[in-house]
């Protein structure tokens, strides 16, 4: 799938690490999103200070940290949702596949199809289940006719693990589904426009344990085809679903590393204090 906004840059995409080409060798992951020295200001107040992080491709990266630490702000930088906030100013670079997404000639609408987002409170459109999924592809010109659209709706709902539950009532409103189903609908909606990255801001906070488990299972399947970044308040969820974890505190990226290591033997005392419940 080529993206018109980025296709001219395909030939300068950073090459995969040579080891990555061999199926059998343990490959160093390619970097999908490369953020360097990102500062974010809301007016005069600095919300993020020199955040530098590589988000690996086809893996789940978790952002953890206390309320107000900047993790959601940083998440929203990756698909430029912060552009909608007047007083918000972003400095530094965020590159996806080597291309800085804050370049003046980036098509932001296209970017937000590339980099999908799922929010804490499920927010299906006030449309039918079918139209919730079909809307994005239609306006992006990704489907040719009804048959195309039908196929895309079905495959998106299947990939989100929702098809069996809704296939006989696609014309019913998306808002009539349960919380867990609505969230899977939102994930299906995000997938339908063929993103490369999916951002999730506390996607399970409003869901019961069973719905949560189904989303976590879905995340595990999705990461084979997408790069996923998830903000979560649950340490255990971060430990379960992610391969890389980054801990934010007071606007600073304090520590980042392999999830296993962060949760069993973190290097920074602030990280240890947060994850063990020694401060809020």
């Amino acid at each position, binding site marked *: 799938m080529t993206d018109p906004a980025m296709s001219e840059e395909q030939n300068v995409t950073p090459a995969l690490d040579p080891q990555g080409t061999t199926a059998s060798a343990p490959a160093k992951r390619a970097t999908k999103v490369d953020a360097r020295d990102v500062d974010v200001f809301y007016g005069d107040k600095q919300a993020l200070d020199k955040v530098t992080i590589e988000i690996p491709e086809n893996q789940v990266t978790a952002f953890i940290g206390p309320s107000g630490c900047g993790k959601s702000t940083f998440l929203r930088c990756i698909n430029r949702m912060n552009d909608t906030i007047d007083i918000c100013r972003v400095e530094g670079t965020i590159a996806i596949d080597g291309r800085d997404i804050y370049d003046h000639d980036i098509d932001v609408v296209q970017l937000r199809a590339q980099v999908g987002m799922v929010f804490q409170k499920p927010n299906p459109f006030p449309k039918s289940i079918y139209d919730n999924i079909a809307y994005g592809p239609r306006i992006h010109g990704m489907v040719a006719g009804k048959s195309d659209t039908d196929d895309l709706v079905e495959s998106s709902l299947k990939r989100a693990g929702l098809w069996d539950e809704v296939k006989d009532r696609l014309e019913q409103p998306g808002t009539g589904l349960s919380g867990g189903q609505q969230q899977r609908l939102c994930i299906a909606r995000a997938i339908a426009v063929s993103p490369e990255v999916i951002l999730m801001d506390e996607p399970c906070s409003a869901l019961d344990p069973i719905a949560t488990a189904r989303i976590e299972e879905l995340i595990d399947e999705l990461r084979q085809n997408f790069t996923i970044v998830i903000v979560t308040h649950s340490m255990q969820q971060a430990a379960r679903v992610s391969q890389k974890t980054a801990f934010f505190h007071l606007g600073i990226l304090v520590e980042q590393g392999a999830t296993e290591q962060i949760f069993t033997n973190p290097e920074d005392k602030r990280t240890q204090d947060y994850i063990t419940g020694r*401060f809020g």
Partner: protein
Amino acid sequence: MTTDHIVKSFDDELNKLSDLVSRMGGLAEEQIERAIDALQKRDGVAATETIENDRKIDALQLEIEELAIQMIVRRQPLAADLRHTVAALKIAPLIERIGDYAKNIGRRTLALNQSPPVKPLFTIPRMGRMARNMVQDVLDAFSNNDVEKARAVWERDAELDDMYDSLFRELLTYMMEDPRSITACTHLLFVARNIERIGDIATNIAEVVHYQVEGQTLSEDRPKADEASVTVVEPQ
């Protein structure tokens, strides 16, 4: 850990876990001392007491394991808390084995008391003291997150192994000189082996302490001088 948990009961549980391990360790140390003392003095009453006291150690193991499991359920501990909980779960059965070895020494004492005494053996009480000190030091190291102290215990085991090796030869020699001493000497061999095993377990505990503090297992091979396993003494 200088900062307290927001939820105080979590701190209380971690402290209780440490206390239980210390108590269990303290009991095991007493048992080692009592057993060796009973052996030296050929004291059947003290030996029997040692055998019976072992159940207190077993009971503490159960308590530690139940608490650690409940902590996993309630707290889902992470990082140092997780390592501390796992360490307690690993150390409890190790101390229980130390207790079993002390109890076994008590049993052997009862058997030995039915034979005439073998030549006075100073090595066994010395070994016993050394093993007891290793256990005490390694459990101190656990309570205080002291990796250096744990490592020192880990290294001392070679000395205990050396003492065992020379005692092994000595006892083989006695047995060859006087076949009537074979029963007693064989029991003493087992006693010595039990003490040597206690030293080994102390080094296992040291490895757990290392993991608890550093978050990584000790990767080197323990300095082991076990020549007794391959010792042969020819009759003259």
